[in-house]
């Protein structure tokens, strides 16, 4: 194996290594749990009589899958990476570390409480991504506030004059999401259809103002670092930041097209969905132009392929989101499995692949421990093939459902039409889950596992470079 660009180790404080490792390790636990639950769910489609129990029923596990994937896995993984990026790009160790540790504990406490309450049937209504009851969300909000304090303190005390563009995105993500959480959980203006308006606003902003901003921020640091060259255009990054903030908060109502929400309100959401092409193409174009001409580096790296897939799915999934928001297409695709395919293109193809890319790019630089090249390759291909097949299957299944309804057939015909695709989806999902097990092994190797030096020379652990 030739020398990886990633083999260079940063000079990182021991406690910062522990902090980054702890965020990544606990996030990995939630990835495994949430996708194990997903596996159970996917097998319930072809085998609905399997695991008949209130605690294993579809209606309860579905929310556990989505919330743990969102708030356990992706939030914790990207927050850990964001803290590391803030520290490296500011030229100082992570500041106010106690706040970051508190954030980590609160993130995990919220995910534990959220998982248990949802499994007991205690929820905030069947409202996607805000199913956690108010007190669990308060724990999560406190996790955001405490982690934000550490992130902000690190940027404030930076020795670099400029605030690197990554920190714009990650600081913004925390500010937006704290405000969003408060707005979404105050009940005073949420009766009847009023709550539906809030739900559209909340569910899409939770994705777009939190995960998108975190993932883009981390990419703006990890990608140039891996390629050992500056980002193609700093100005495009700034344009992406402001246009994301300008367009994203308005598009939520496109999840309720043809609903009783005011027609103009839905139209406004569709118009701004078209506006989203500006930040999406600015961001993904910027990343691709940074990679242009350096495909040999991508080929030799184990982190860069994940970033390439993440950026590609950012472009594809978000552009798909704009196109499918048009009424002519929503008429067929709305309420079908097509939406589930889209959400996996974005939350998995984009957010999760970027999280993996960032972890493979940055964690070994911090700990000095590297994942196995073979295991990383297996992780990459299992996850990529798994999710791509998954998306294609559900896109076809959703189209079949929508066309069956439009043809005026009895409802059960849409279930029968989608059934073979659901069975195949469970197989694709299995492939994805296996890739997560391999990833977990790699995370172990990058954190708690034996150092390469120790293995090679059998030196005592204290001689391992920090």
């Amino acid at each position, binding site marked *: 194996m030739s020398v990886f660009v990633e083999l260079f180790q940063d000079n990182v404080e021991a406690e910062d290594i522990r902090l980054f490792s702890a965020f990544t390790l606990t996030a990995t636990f939630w990835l495994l749990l949430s996708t194990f639950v997903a596996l159970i769910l996917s097998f319930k489609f072809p085998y*609905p009589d399997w695991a*008949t129990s209130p605690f294993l029923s579809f*209606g309860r596990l579905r929310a556990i899958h989505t919330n743990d994937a969102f708030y356990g896995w992706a939030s914790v993984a990207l927050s850990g990476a964001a803290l590391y990026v803030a520290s490296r790009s500011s030229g100082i160790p992570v500041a106010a570390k106690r706040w970051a540790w508190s954030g980590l504990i609160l993130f995990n406490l919220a995910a534990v409480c959220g998982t248990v309450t949802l499994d007991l049937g205690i929820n905030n209504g069947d409202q996607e991504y805000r199913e956690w009851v108010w007190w669990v969300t308060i724990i999560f909000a406190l996790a955001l506030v405490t982690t934000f304090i550490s992130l902000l303190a690190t940027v404030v005390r930076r020795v670099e004059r400029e605030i690197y563009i990554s920190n714009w995105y990650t600081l913004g993500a925390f500010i937006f999401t704290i*405000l969003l959480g408060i*707005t979404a959980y105050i009940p005073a203006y949420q009766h009847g259809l009023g709550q539906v308006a809030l739900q559209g606003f909340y569910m899409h902003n939770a994705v777009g103002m939190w995960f998108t901003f975190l993932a883009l921020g981390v990419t703006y640091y990890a990608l140039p670092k891996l390629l050992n060259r500056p980002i193609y255009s700093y100005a495009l990054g700034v344009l992406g930041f402001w246009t994301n*903030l300008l367009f994203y908060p308005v598009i939520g109502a496109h999840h309720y097209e043809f609903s009783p929400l005011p027609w103009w309100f839905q139209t406004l959401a569709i118009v701004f969905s078209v506006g989203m092409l500006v930040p999406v193409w600015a961001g993904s174009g910027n990343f691709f132009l940074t990679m242009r001409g350096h495909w040999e580096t991508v080929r030799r790296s184990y982190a860069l392929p994940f970033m390439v897939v993440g950026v590609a799915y950012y472009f594809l999934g978000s552009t798909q989101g704009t196109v499918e928001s048009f009424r002519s297409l929503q008429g067929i695709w709305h309420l079908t499995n097509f939406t589930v395919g889209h959400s996996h293109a974005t939350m998995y193809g984009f957010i999760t692949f970027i999280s993996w890319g960032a972890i493979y790019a940055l964690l070994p630089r911090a700990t000095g421990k590297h994942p196995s090249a073979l295991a990383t390759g297996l992780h990459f291909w299992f996850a990529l093939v798994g999710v791509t097949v998954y998306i294609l299957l559900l896109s076809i299944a959703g189209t079949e459902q929508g066309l069956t309804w439009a043809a005026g057939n009895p409802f059960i015909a849409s*279930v029968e039409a989608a059934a073979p695709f659901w069975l195949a989806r469970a197989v694709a999902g299995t492939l994805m889950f296996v890739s997560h097990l391999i990833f977990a092994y790699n995370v172990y190797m990058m954190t708690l596992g034996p150092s390469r030096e120790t293995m090679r020379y059998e030196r005592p652990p204290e001689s391992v470079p920090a």
Partner: protein
Amino acid sequence: MNNVWALVAASAVIYGIYCILMGVAPGAALSRVPPLPGVHPLAARESHGRDIYVAEGCSYCHTQQVRPLAQDQVFGRPSVAGDYVYDTPQLLGTERTGPDLTSIGSRQPSEIWQYIHLWDPRAVVHESIMPRYTWLFQVKDKAGPGDVIVPLPPGYGPEKGVVVATADAKDLVAYLESLKQVPLTGGQAK
């Protein structure tokens, strides 16, 4: 930019305005929509049944919104804001893996059908992939006085004894039976 406080303040102010314009304001305006004539709050038992519907996550597969599209006519007339005045938490849903339930009380008025379907959906719809909700029922050797016995086709019941609906099942079915649309025109408030 190198002023972190300006960045933080600008982000917070712009997004704060959006939270009010796109969240709080439409929420407040739509929360004040008057009910359609004939739309009433649920009775206590129906309301408890609705809580079970929410706890079990029924709306991950069943919508409660009829769209102004030809393919939705089978579920009733297009839904309007006045239908939802007492519907909190909202149950419009975003996926229709199973049929819409806006007017299930009119479309399937048989309580017994609902009980059989909740015990084992495949006992009435062979191709259904809906989960069984067996924990809403009790298997007894003999039904007691006042028990609602669920009549099951051969092969779908327990080997011994009878299946009896619990209070939760009765309330859930009462809620499902209450799901009816009031007419938009020509309807009289009662």
